């Protein structure tokens, strides 16, 4: 087990290094940073000064080492737009994105798990069939369009919920959170529901598939034969065995929620990382783009690493070595 964790750790580090090379090559070799960094009206001396300042006259491997050095120090350079360290800008907005993603995940679980369980236990009922058709819709509806329609119905027509921003926030553990104030919670509701829609369908379908896989198993039949109460069969025997795939998916999907929050944040003007990265791509704010990409890479590698470890602990039959 320890060997497999260490091996997995080396793989994770390898992935991070590989991604630094890809991002570096992508940003510095395919796109020409000189064009982005320097005002086209600048004279020759000004050009030379800027090139030397950013080390762009150095050989490419040296530039890469400089990039790595900056990376290890958490220094991605200053944002061209805000004139402040890029990483700081992103970290500042991380809580807003995390708040949104966690709430969305919560909604997806609270709605998806029971509905999936129900649809799996009573597949013949009309309500189950409706639930399953609904989940297909949840898969197919483009998230951003649903977001717009939510705004149209709940904000414009009914006027129940606000359309954009985080609303008033309250400080907790040194960070500003929306969900602690009533008004902030109202701001959170629509974006979180929008982000949760796709994942709800996913968890719902996964749970249903899991239930149908577990129900015909011998240990369920045996429990029934023993006269175990139905509620206990469902609560303990079915649910426990369901949790392994669900936990994996939750881990993986949490990362994907953060990635997809790009869309929701843009619609609801939610001041998180996702909105920042879209603005930065549009404004060619290179340090912020690089910092965001590297942060996401680290986040995903870390998430995958944790999931793998949890998986081994949850299910002793799974050995990480067996995968290779």
């Amino acid at each position, binding site marked *: 087990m320890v060997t497999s964790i260490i091996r997995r750790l080396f793989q994770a580090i390898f992935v991070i290094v*590989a991604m630094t090379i890809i*991002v570096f090559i992508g940003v510095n070799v395919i*796109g020409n940073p000189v064009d982005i960094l320097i005002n086209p009206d600048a004279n020759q001396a000004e050009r030379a000064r800027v090139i030397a300042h950013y080390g762009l006259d150095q050989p490419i491997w040296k530039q890469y080492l400089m990039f790595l050095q900056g990376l290890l120090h958490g220094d991605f350079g200053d944002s061209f737009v805000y004139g402040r360290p890029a990483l700081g800008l992103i970290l500042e907005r991380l809580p807003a994105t995390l708040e949104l993603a966690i709430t969305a995940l919560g909604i997806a679980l609270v709605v998806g798990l029971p509905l999936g369980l129900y649809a799996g236990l009573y597949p013949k009922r009309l309500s189950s069939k409706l639930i399953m058709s609904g989940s297909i819709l949840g898969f*197919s509806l483009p*998230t951003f*369009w649903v977001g*717009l329609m939510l705004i149209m119905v709940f904000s414009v027509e009914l006027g129940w919920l606000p359309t954009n921003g985080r609303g008033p926030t309250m400080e907790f553990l040194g960070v500003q959170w929306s969900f602690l104030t009533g008004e902030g919670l109202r701001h959170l509701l629509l974006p979180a529901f929008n982000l949760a829609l796709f994942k709800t369908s996913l968890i719902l379908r996964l749970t249903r598939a899991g239930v149908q896989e577990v129900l015909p198993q011998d240990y369920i039949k045996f429990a029934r034969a023993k006269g175990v109460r139905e509620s206990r069969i469902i609560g303990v025997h079915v649910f426990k065995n369901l949790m392994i795939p669900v936990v994996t998916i939750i881990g993986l999907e949490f990362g994907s929620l953060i990635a997809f929050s790009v869309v929701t944040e843009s619609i609801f003007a939610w001041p998180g990382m996702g909105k920042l990265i879209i603005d930065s791509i*549009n404004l060619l704010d290179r340090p912020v783009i690089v910092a965001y990409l590297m942060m*996401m890479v680290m986040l995903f590698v870390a998430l995958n690493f944790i999931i793998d470890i949890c998986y081994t602990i949850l299910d002793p039959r799974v050995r990480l070595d067996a995968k290779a």
Partner: protein
Amino acid sequence: MSEANVQDQSVQPASVEPPEPSRLSQGIAEFFKSPAAAIGFIMLVVICCLALFAPWIAPQNPYDLMQLDIMDGRLAPGSESMTGMVYYLGTDSQGRDILSGMLYGLRTSLMVGVLSAFAAAIIGTTAGLFAAYMGRRTETVIMRLVDLQLSFPTILMALMMLAILGKGVINVVIALIIAEWATYARTVRSTALVEREKEYVEAARMLRLPGWRILFKHLLPNCLAPVIVIATMQVARAIGLEATLSFLGLGASVTEPSLGMLISTGYQYLLTGLYWISFFPGIALLVTIVSINLVGDRLRDVLNPRNAS
């Protein structure tokens, strides 16, 4: 059933094989047994025709700025222009007929979806086949790359590519290809690994056929079923992603809007109650994606060898 037939075909002379036009027609009959799939298929055909013949059907060329009249901007569905033309689904802020915009946008969306899914299928399938057939180093390198890519969500890969390449429809296609090829590679490899061990490949090896021939003439046809299913689903995914990226302002340009771009331009007017600019293109997008998914879902059931018996 289908598996065995294809295998035999590749080893034995064609004349020995009984004529089998029935297999395809059987599959088609099987496909249309599901009413949902049949509806999806019909809708898809209609959508493709609408997109294909958009220049002849559309009341207006929405990309031709000369035909747009700013005076007709933001008209509600059913309004009539000064020239007597009826805007059945209303107009956007520049006086563009939403119906025409949707028909043309559908073209862009379908083109992006089909092109990227097709290109990704070719690249991914080839990579997967090579990985399975060559084994050792080649396999390790390709599959590590696949693992690396699949550990990131598609939208992040696409964003990464667009951050590097810059905005534009062509770059969106490239980004989608790069983001999606790995799915094919993984599936094809696992199918090919199973197929590789079967007798017909051994027989082909015995005949000393060149490697590329075994790969593409013997292994490839037997790995195609999952590729077709994934490709269908990927077209829908790619269309959705293209619309999302265009909505974020990273895809199609304002002058030649795709469906996503139309929805995006309607966004700012939504708050003032001009719902139609975003609403109708979204419906078109939804219908397209749902019908492709319905067809893909059924294809998976029909083509799955486990269900075929």
